[in-house]
């Protein structure tokens, strides 16, 4: 049994894509580190896989650590930031 996790994409992760989410499959009690590994498997380009290494997963309220369990709430992948 697995969980389908839709991940919202931002910034450079949207490059060349028409959709703004990517769905990956993980085990029911997966950690964020396992989610990262699963996302790595489904990304299509070396650039995107490289960007993933420097990116953070987050909910609407907090940035997640790799040791955290994947929450039930909506998940986003956040590439390095540069506001202003």
């Amino acid at each position, binding site marked *: 049994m697995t969980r389908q996790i839709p991940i*919202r994409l*931002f*910034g*450079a992760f*949207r*490059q060349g894509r028409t959709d703004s989410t990517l769905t990956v499959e993980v085990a029911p009690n997966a950690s964020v580190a396992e989610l990262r590994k699963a996302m790595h498997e489904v990304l299509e380009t070396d650039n995107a896989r490289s960007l993933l290494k*420097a*990116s*953070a997963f*987050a*909910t*609407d*309220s*907090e*940035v*997640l*650590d790799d040791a955290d369990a994947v929450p039930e709430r909506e998940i*986003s992948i*956040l*590439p*390095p*930031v*540069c*506001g*202003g």
Partner: protein
Amino acid sequence: MILVDITDSVLDPLIALGHCCADSHGAADLFIGRVRNLNEGRPVTAVSYDLHPVLCRNIFEKISQEALEQWGEHIHVFLAHRQGRLDVGEASVIAAVSSPHRAHSFEACRYLVEQMKVRAPIWKQEHYVDGDSEWIKGHVLRNPA
């Protein structure tokens, strides 16, 4: 007193200064970040700002609350960022702080801007004169240790 905003609309510095105002405040500091026409030698025509609106607002509120904790609950704080495509010269961010004396306004306003740069989920894609576009490399988001 804190006011933060994420908006598609033109940023108005008068709204920031209207919020950062009190009879006991002898100082108000205003920062406006604008799209510039050159980056690393490449002529820029516009910048598209992508952001995570809910998380960005939460981070803005956290940063603002930290400013109050550091410089006093009596200061007034304003932090707003625009999203979407902006032409050269348009304001992308406004930060403002008012306080009884100038030192706290200067320091707190700078704190808002510097923290926003490294903690807020905001990304920019520059558009160049030659028609090319590029996402700008930024700061890796990590939770504090």
